């Protein structure tokens, strides 16, 4: 098997995640799709790291994970506070600057 297949899989997962972001309305599910896209990127980084024979790709994937953790914390806090003010987690409802 050619390790390029990992890249194809990463591209497929990224596409599925991007489509999910466009299709879904529930903010939490949209957020999960963003996470899926980040994970697909990580897989591509790890596969590239193996192809080029150095660990820099893994370092970038590691930093992506850290940033994703920070992003999830803030993003979920935003979703919770949005839910508190609008009683809905739909991304369509948050179309006004202020309630």
């Amino acid at each position: 098997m050619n390790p390029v297949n990992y890249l194809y899989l990463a591209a497929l997962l990224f596409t599925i995640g991007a489509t999910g972001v466009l299709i879904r309305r529930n903010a939490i599910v949209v957020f999960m799709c963003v996470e899926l896209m980040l994970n697909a990127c990580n897989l591509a980084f790890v596969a590239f790291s193996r192809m080029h024979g150095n660990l820099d790709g893994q370092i970038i994937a590691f930093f992506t994970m850290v940033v994703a953790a920070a992003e999830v914390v803030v993003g979920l806090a935003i979703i919770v506070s949005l839910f508190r003010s609008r009683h809905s987690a739909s991304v369509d409802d948050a179309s006004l600057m202020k309630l």
Partner: protein
Amino acid sequence: MTAQLAAYSTSTGEAVQFWTLGTIAVIGALCTVFMKKAVHSALCLAGTMIVLAVFYLANGAYFLGIVQIVVYTGAIMMLFLFVVMLVGVTAADSLKETIKGQRWLALLCGLGFGILLIGGIGNASLEEFSGLGQANAGGNVEGIASLIFTKYVFAFEITGALLITAAVGAMVLTHRERTERARTQREMAEQRVREGKYLPPLPAPGVYARHNAVDIAGLLPDGTPSELTVNKTLRQRGQIRDVSAEALNDLKALEQRAEERLERDAIQRAKFKRAEEASK
């Protein structure tokens, strides 16, 4: 197969693993997008992430594979589940499209984007590949550590600042200062009296029905379920089990059995009915 050889060529075992687990990962990703409930989406995503962790391990990224399981499936997905628990109760996805044809356009965009990406990878010259055997020679964790603390040390320190900022930001966003005093039980009771509705405590679920489970609405005297008896959360989730038809059927069966036992015939029953109507 030695580790050295495994780093330079992919074995049949890895091919089998790739095609099996890759299928599971794609199915998990599709379920994440298309499952109706957010909880199911989260569980499917957790499955996909575990598969990705196995792929990291197979690609020689032993540290990242473990971190993926611990941080992503362990911490981040748990955070997601907590928020689904807090928010998802009433967060039913609206099926109404606000922009006409948005779903089909999104699918089309996704398809085009996927073709673009996969075509790009297909056209790239990625023929030769050198495995991680040399880079991982001194151990994967040691290799990553020596890179992080030399070449990427500034990025690493900035990451620390980012994490602290994120923690503070989450606290600021979710913290809510109480601007008014919480109402006491006495004040709430007085308000109920003033408004003149539901003076006694709310009826318990299932009191007038034949079950006492919390998700079964109590029945009113005319046999219709009373939503007042069920917890607000269950009401909003639409998880009330309606037993009114069942209860009415049971009652009918009971009446019939009683009549059979008393050996009432049809004429007598008709007479009884007429008498009943007359009494009305």
